[in-house]
């Protein structure tokens, strides 16, 4: 067994293919995680309600309640629990749907064992970072907006919004380093926990979503600014003038 900082983390594995589930469970146990295995969506929600988990590994095509709905329900109850979707579907639509319903990461079958383990670790690491930093400053107010980082909710210009974990984490990271230029590479590493290769559009998409939520004018952002050739910077409006100068 390999000991790590995450030894003892509890993982809920939702997978109806027995041969695959047995293999995954064995490997996770060997890594020092505690695993509960649910064979279908109904059982998964049942276990989720009764026990606490640090991470969910979720197949999409599962009996009774499909993976998307399971993710949506889990997100409704515990917004911060990281969800790793594991599926044979490779279509772009499925990926987008998965991420929109609240999955944090998406791994397609067949996958490499090492990649699965690395992604689990990165999700757990991110969860810890997020929990620590959200615990310090659970709420943040800028302009007409107020964000609750614990419950992943926000109010923007009087409208209430539910944030996904990624949206909240990107915002949290930018706010934590406000008035500093943060590169896409840094965001990918710190927030997604992945090595930055050709996936820089991911960051841009999330920035666009955040701007849609919080900027009074999306085309002329005042809070989340693009710094040409460098990345993004969060600017609190109170200190706007200073920056503009």
């Amino acid at each position, binding site marked *: 067994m390999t000991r790590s900082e995450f030894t003892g983390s509890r993982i809920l594995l939702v997978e109806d293919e027995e*041969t*695959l589930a047995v293999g995954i469970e*064995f490997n996770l146990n*060997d890594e020092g995680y505690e695993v509960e295995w649910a064979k279908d969506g109904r059982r998964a929600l049942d276990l989720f309600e009764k026990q606490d988990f640090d991470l969910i590994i979720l197949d999409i095509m599962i*009996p009774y309640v499909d993976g998307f709905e399971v993710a949506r329900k889990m997100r409704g109850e515990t917004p911060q629990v990281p969800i790793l979707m594991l599926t044979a579907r*490779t279509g772009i639509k499925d990926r987008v749907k998965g991420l929109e319903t609240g999955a944090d990461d998406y791994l397609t079958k067949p996958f490499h064992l090492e990649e699965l383990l690395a992604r689990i670790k990165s999700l757990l690491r991110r969860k810890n970072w997020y929990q620590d930093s959200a615990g310090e400053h659970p709420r943040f107010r800028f302009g007409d907006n107020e964000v609750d980082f614990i419950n992943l909710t926000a109010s923007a210009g009087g409208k209430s919004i539910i944030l996904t974990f990624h949206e909240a984490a990107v915002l949290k990271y930018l706010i934590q380093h406000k008035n500093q230029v943060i590169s896409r590479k840094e965001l990918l590493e710190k927030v997604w926990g992945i090595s930055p290769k050709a996936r820089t559009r991911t960051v841009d998409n999330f920035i666009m979503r955040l701007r849609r939520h919080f900027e009074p004018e999306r085309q002329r952002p005042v809070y989340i600014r693009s710094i040409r050739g460098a990345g993004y910077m969060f600017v609190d409006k109170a200190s706007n003038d200073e920056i503009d100068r």
Partner: protein
Amino acid sequence: MDKKRSLTRYVVIFVLAQIAWFSLLGLWIYRFISSRMILKQVDESLSSWVMSEAANIFTLVFGCVLFLAISIGMSLIFRNFTVQYKITNLYDNFIANITHELKTPLASIQLNLETIKNRNLEHSQMEKFITLMLRDAGRLNRLINTILEVAGLEQKKAVYQCGIFTAGRTMRELIQESRKQFNLSENALNISGRAECECVIDKNSFRILIDNLMDNAVKYSRGPVHIKVNLQCTPKKFIMEFSDKGIGIPSKSLKKIFSKFYRLQRPHAPNVKGTGLGLHWVREIVRYHGGRIKALKSEKGAAFRIELPVYRVSRKRRLKKLLKTSQKLNAGIK
């Protein structure tokens, strides 16, 4: 969504084309009659000089027949097109399903191989993983066979080895074999009726047929599996009714479920996997034997009725042909 809209577009184009044909026909008849009337008024002798009465009528009738033939031809081509169109739409689903069915066992084999490679396993653990991988390899093999067999069936390349068997006894044997294969207890199955009539049967393909029905019964049962089979003979037919107590089939889908690639979309079902080929295969097997299959309305669970012609009574040309090809095949093998 887009595809549905574009089919509507084709239907509109087709209807407009038909309207155009018939307007042209109408216009033509109108012009023909009016010019004849004019000619008649001008001069009787001139009219007969232009064209004889009989030739005129012949041209009119022949023209109408030609127009009708073109219109019918177009309708037939259009009908065929819509059928193909629907199959293409279902085919997209099939690709998604088959991708899932192929990738899942592959993922499992890969994971288990990497586990053996990366971890220090004890002998017993190693054996466990190898057994799992063999199970997946078997699953992949069955799936690939299904795809190939169904393709062969359509190109009439499937190999049948038919013989004359007592229908009831043969079916009982095959059903019991299948029950064991699916690890079902004896109580899960209730077979009634004797059915002593003789039918022309290829045992191998009926084994596949029963396995498919049994597989569905297992997959779509929420609790323990209960299967009821009734066997009987009428003077002309052998009838087998196969029913389970699973989630059943909505009555509007009773006919569609035999279509190639068709799958019921039910997100809350106990099973969500499949290729959409199983029942299509079943129907093709029954048809090949000169019989019929129907999904019956049932209050609880799914129910199928399979009819085969009785050999002595019907002596259809089809059955004789089946036996003849099988005999040739046997001779070839020997």
